[in-house]
């Protein structure tokens, strides 16, 4: 009796959860479906599925405006800014986690507070500095900006991971005569790799999707996908399938990365406040 009731309950909850999740996912699903339609099918929305599957839009997106250059801009900017941030953040987080001083806590808080600065507050000077230095529409300039805006998150996330590495192990290694360098390479790094990897994933996601600086500091040459997709905001004839194809390509890699790293995401995005 009780089991029948609980099975019935599970069925109801399952159906409800699936309906809600499909509604939430629908815009993405619809975009992917539309990307495989012809332009004619794409605007004929009374038919949910297409009459024929077509990959023509994908080719058109590429031939129309060299899609893959923007794709590679995104890759270079996302990965470059992440590597730069890690180079600066790993030593800092290590120092703060294993050799804390009375000031460490204030320092961490101050770093976090730089993240609160609204981008518009510094848009004007950054724009003018970039203009003077010839960094506008330049992949390297953007890489540095994205490194700076994500640096506090990277340091924080690494710090919360490093904090969980038992200090005893480091001391045991030191007792055995390991130098600081050896301690770092043989003891700390292997234990820290998972934390560094998830920090890296989260930062790539954030950099890939960043859409304030990428829109304001790039034009045709260095535009990553965020800015390239924005160029579709002024429609030209029938472009629904092409827009969908460009969008699908732009979100697919990061959707996969995001799904892989969803568990670590919570901790990174809440600065360790929710685990």
């Amino acid at each position, binding site marked *: 009796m009780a089991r029948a009731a609980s099975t019935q309950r599970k069925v109801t909850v*399952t159906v409800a*959860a699936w309906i809600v999740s499909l509604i939430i996912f629908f815009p993405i699903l*619809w975009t992917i479906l539309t990307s495989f339609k012809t332009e004619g099918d794409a605007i004929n929305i009374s038919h949910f599925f297409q009459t024929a599957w077509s990959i023509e839009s994908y080719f058109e997106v590429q031939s129309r405006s060299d899609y893959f250059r923007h794709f590679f801009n995104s890759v270079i900017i996302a990965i470059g800014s992440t590597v730069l941030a890690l180079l600066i953040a790993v030593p800092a987080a290590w120092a703060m986690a294993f050799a804390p001083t009375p000031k460490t806590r204030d320092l961490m808080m101050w770093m976090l507070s*730089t993240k609160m600065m609204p981008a518009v507050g*510094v848009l004007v000077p950054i724009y003018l500095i970039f203009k003077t230095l010839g960094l506008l529409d330049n992949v390297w300039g953007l890489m540095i900006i994205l490194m700076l805006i994500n640096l506090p998150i990277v340091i924080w996330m690494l710090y919360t991971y490093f904090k969980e590495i038992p200090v005893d192990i480091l001391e045991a290694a030191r007792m055995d005569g390991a130098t600081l360098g050896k301690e770092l390479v043989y003891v700390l790094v292997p234990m820290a790799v998972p934390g560094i990897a998830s920090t890296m994933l989260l930062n790539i996601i954030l950099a890939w999707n960043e859409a304030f600086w990428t829109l304001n500091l790039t034009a045709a040459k260095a535009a990553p996908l965020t800015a390239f997709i924005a160029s579709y*905001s002024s429609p030209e004839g029938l472009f629904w399938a092409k*827009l969908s194809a460009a969008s699908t390509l732009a979100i697919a890699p990061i959707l996969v990365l995001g799904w892989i790293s969803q568990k670590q995401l919570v901790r990174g995005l809440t600065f360790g406040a*929710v685990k």
Partner: protein
Amino acid sequence: MATRQTRTLARIMSAPSIIVLFVWMIVPLVLTLWYSLQRYNLNYPERAGFVWFRNYYFFLTDPAFIQAISNTLILVIGVLVITVVGGILLALLLDQPIWGQGIVRLLVIAPFFVMPTVSALVWKNMLMHPQYGIFAWISTSLGIKPVSWLTDYPLLSVIIITAWEWLPFATLILLTALQSLDEDQKEASEMDGANFINRFIYIILPHLSRAITVVILIETIFLLGIFAEIFVTTQGGPGYASTNLPFLVYVQALLNYDVGGASAGGVIAVILANIVAIFLIRIVGKNLDA
């Protein structure tokens, strides 16, 4: 444990991060403050000069400013209400035993990974478009006249798009918090015959309070800076109907080339964000001690 040698080394190791963040925070901000007191338009560089608070006066008395501030607040509060309430409900639903929980979870969090320009364009053209959008199709099927979302309800449309992007974030964090609720505690209260409403009010909600606070504060930081969603959908219009503070500053700086006025707007945005930031820092700081 820390010897003098390690302490020196620790200092050297954290120095680069402190220096770059310090430069990044101070230099542009001081420049923004400086420009905000200048008359400086890139179109008329010869007419530059120190004007004290004139830019602030013009900016603050501009009717667009008042509307931008109120739009900013409506946008933040609207999205917060939808995502927090929706996030709690969704988290409660997904916390139940269901078939295919893993897949459902993936579907629900997916919108968070979609870049803002893509989500805004997809909503604009595929869902909200008055002719070829899904909403128009649903309306027509039901015999109702399709709504032209972006021209008739611009701010509401931006709120809906942004809420769709942030609902997964709220759900994911609240679900994580919910799953850490002690099973025994839940069972005990069920044994005691507490109904769902009581359990929700006395056990679940207090347990979620910290996560809810974190969601509200972090979302606020990002929502104060919403830009791309407006940039690709309404361009702040019609008129100033969907212009928020970041978009207004962008228009002043990069479309009107008014460096002074835009900087004054930037300073105001910084002040606004700082009020929120003070609260966030306190909360996160408390969690550090815990």
